[in-house]
């Protein structure tokens, strides 16, 4: 590993992406607005992306970069479908609140 090429140690990247990841998780759990939840999901995915890039650079293996591209495309698709579904669900409702969407239980 070429320490000098990397001004920032690998551990920091891992730490950063973990922090981002858990912010995403918190976002999904705490916020009630579905859009915010979708954004938090995106956040989680991007944290993983960051990790891939860091390790790709660390292992000098381009698979990480390819994986990152793959993740970005899939995230985009998922966001599109997510927004479509959110629109369908909340078109007929008064306010955009995930907790109202609780018809099925038990």
């Amino acid at each position, binding site marked *: 590993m070429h320490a000098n090429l990397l001004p920032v140690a690998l551990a920091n990247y891992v730490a950063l992406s973990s922090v981002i990841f858990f912010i995403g998780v918190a976002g999904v759990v705490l916020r009630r607005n579905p859009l915010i939840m979708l954004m938090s999901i995106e956040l989680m*995915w991007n944290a993983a992306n960051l990790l891939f890039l860091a390790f790709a650079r660390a292992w000098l293996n381009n698979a990480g970069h390819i994986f990152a591209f793959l993740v970005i495309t899939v995230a985009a698709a998922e966001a599109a479908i997510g927004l479509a579904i959110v629109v369908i669900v909340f078109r007929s409702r008064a306010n955009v609140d995930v907790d109202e969407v609780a018809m099925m239980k038990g």
Partner: protein
Amino acid sequence: MPNFITHEDWLAITPLLIAGGGALIVLLVDLLWPKHAPRYVSLALGIGVLLAAGAFAATTYGRSYDAFNGGFMLGGFAVVFQEIIVVSAIFSLALFGTFGRDDRMAGITALLLWSTTGAMLMAGAANLMTIFLGLELLSLALYCLCGVAGRPASQESALKYLILSSTASGFLLFGMALLFGATGSVTLASLTLPGLTANPLYWMGGGFFLVGIAFKLSLMPFHVWSPDVYEGAPLPVTAFMSVVTKAGTLAVFARFAYALPHGEKLLLPFFVIAGISMIGGNLAMLAQTDLKRLLAYSGVAQAGYMVAALAGASALGMRYAIYYLAAYMFMNLGAFAIAALLSGEREEGAQIAAFRGLGQRQPLLAAAMSFFLLALAGFPPTAGFLGKILILAATVNAGYAWLAALLIAGTAISLYAYFKIFRLMYDPHDSPAPAVRTSAPLAYAGAAFCAVCVIIMTFYPLTPSNVLPLVK
């Protein structure tokens, strides 16, 4: 310049291309048709495409080839999984014969074909990227399919499924990233590097990866999504989802588990939650009123059984898991076919109450349903019983006796749970429920086909030794 994509590689992914391409063709035909392609045209086309994909995959049965230098595994048990996925896809398309609106049928068929492609990709996936790609392709198509039915519950189930599944994929990705960090390569084969266990990244990566897999298999703590989604989604989609997601994910887990040289430590929590879901799934079934929710919990328990078969990474275990998955597919789809017959236009019939007094009104249907239920419960003459015994043998041989005990306890509880429906059907003293939807020839055919398969599998149990090659 090495030729990156050899003839063998093309051969490996042709079934996927057929399925994916077929979806495009269905959409094109729908576009060119004057107004909307009638229902049966798109369905017929979809089934045709699937048959072609299945036939082609069958031809590559004998060979096992590492396509795309470790990206996609051809042959081996991948083909069997692909066959199972194709059969359940054809089955759910057949069920669509009486569900959903005409004008949407083309879209539904296309989505279904794409999710089948995703699942087939997962079945053969040999490295993290293909796993993720297959998983997401399957899931994205399913999010839309869940929302297809006009009912508000269907939209709600789509939303829930999307958000929760994406979160789980997030965990999966994070796990993959850490694994990539630990091993330096994306292929599953790299997991066999020595000294991995000393690296904390390997442990955390493995953990998060397994969380993602557990969610998809709907094992106990991560099963919370399945009852709502199964209930909300239209019946054919639920049927499709209950088998295909389990099949694809099981293949991925199998490759992951068998790749780990000394994975007991890493996989232990996974088998623990498999055990918990066996007990919890069956327990939850006791208090259900909606048939689809009941089959959802049953799916949770059955997933537990299948994972238990893989305990200890024994070669036999893999065979028995596949045998049980095949048996589960037939039993489950049969039960859904009968449920399809019973549910009315607005699918309010899928309640368990619909079975009251069925023994009198439709003796044949009642007999078929009780046969499937007995199979799910593991009653002797059915494949379910044989499957359970094989899994018992595998777990006991692999030294996971506690898992076998949990399996026995789970079966006992399930015995009573399934009997509640059995009892409703044969209670002459109760008032009969609404009439049965009789205009679904395809559903009848499907149910009959599943029943025949379950019977065949009991007495000629695809004796794993000759049908399934060893795990490659």
